[in-house]
């Protein structure tokens, strides 16, 4: 089957969304450093032109830390080349993307072990020792 990329349509580049988002990221970093307030940018609500999301991802790049979460489908959580700026992608059990976010924080909340899970784990461990 021919790839859709083979169709000879070249969309004129506009790059309208990438720069404003990068500016928003800078403001979010300011807020994190000065007020210790994290920011989440939901990328789903923005009208990206074809290729713009890839451009944003490529501009932010891949940093030194990446994690994969396996809960209700896979999630990819990785720090970009800009420390404190995280690219988070949630997929469902059919591996379809259901959410895409930029989090400006020290550690994304979803990476922390949650008290409910810790309690359930402790109970399991105790049961195993009985």
């Amino acid at each position, binding site marked *: 089957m021919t790839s859709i990329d083979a169709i*000879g*349509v*070249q*969309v*004129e580049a*506009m790059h*309208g969304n990438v720069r404003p988002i990068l500016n928003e990221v800078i403001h979010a970093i300011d807020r994190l450093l000065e007020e210790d307030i994290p920011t*989440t*940018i*939901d990328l*789903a*609500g*923005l*009208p*990206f*032109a*074809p290729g*713009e999301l890839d451009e944003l991802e490529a501009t932010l790049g891949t940093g030194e830390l990446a994690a994969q*979460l396996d*809960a*209700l489908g896979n*999630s990819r959580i990785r720090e970009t080349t800009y420390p404190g700026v995280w690219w988070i992608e*949630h997929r*469902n*059990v*059919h591996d*379809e*993307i*259901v*959410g895409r*976010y930029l989090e400006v924080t020290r550690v994304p*909340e*979803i990476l922390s072990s*949650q*008290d*409910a*899970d810790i309690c359930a784990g402790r109970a399991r461990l105790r049961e195993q020792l009985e």
Partner: protein
Amino acid sequence: MKYTPTVGEILQAKGVSRRGFLKYCATTASLLALPPSMIPRIAAALENARRPSVIWLSFQECTGCTESLTRSASPTVEGLIFDAISLDYHHTLQAASGEQAEAARHAAMEENDGGYLVLVDGSIPMGNPGFSTIAGVSNHDMLMETVAGAAAVVSIGSCAAFGGIPGANPNPTGAVAVSDLVKDKPIINVPGCPPIPMVMTAVLTQFLTFGQLPEVDKLGRPLAFFGKTIHDRCYRRPFYEQGKFAESFDDEGAKAGWCLYKLGCKGPTTYNACATVKWNSGTSFPIESGHPCLGCSEPNFWDKGGFYQPISTGHFGSGAKLAGAAAAGVALGVAAAAAGRRRQAKFTKEA
């Protein structure tokens, strides 16, 4: 009323971790177009929410709305059916048929009296009850019987919301919308031919999460998705402002991805979220694929002139002014869109 487990209990029983639950809440916030700061509130509400009983009625329809819903990626339709709602009756999806199916509908109505949701796709024929019946019952009678004990009604698709294609001129079956018949229940319209699956699930999720239906516009559509036009959120909008238009489907403008206004795009007068939510798991939407918006989420979209006629030269008549504004682009472009919307409003009022 029978005991219905909370969503928290259901997910716990399924072995879903707290992390998984937080992920679910994050995607729910995204789905409801709520800011990420709302995630903790959604988590608290969802944990204790009890899944509502849903009865889905299909009348004069093509099953496209159900097809669309079953391709909803967020949450999956299985998740929606088994976790978020209790889908107690749906002709196409349920295993039961005949008397068993009708018994399931009546049982759901009795057990959840006053608290269930009725989802309707398809219009209701008023010309002759025999045009469309289910188990020997006319669509009208089944609708009125079922909504009597409902908390709210959701009209899924343009047929249920506005009459749709069955109601198009000359409307041989006398098709009407749900809102033409049901006057004493809250009604949410989720139009589209078909509607965006995520919008359908968002309405259900909002009801599940906050126990209330979303804020709507004057046509009863959820504002979070129908608050802006396709044109307002279209990535090709800058070309419209610059006066750069595709004149045919194979010219240089089309290949460069310029604005499709002159090829009949109804984006300026169509309120929907296709440009941001997109279709096929967020792959694209019609304009991104090089085709003008048909305006399928607006009333009487089928009768508004040719799909490939510019708004300015179609049904609305006074074409020259609007076409001139479009050609001039830049500042005039915004005025043209506004003028188109005013005409749209006038048309809707007259219809």
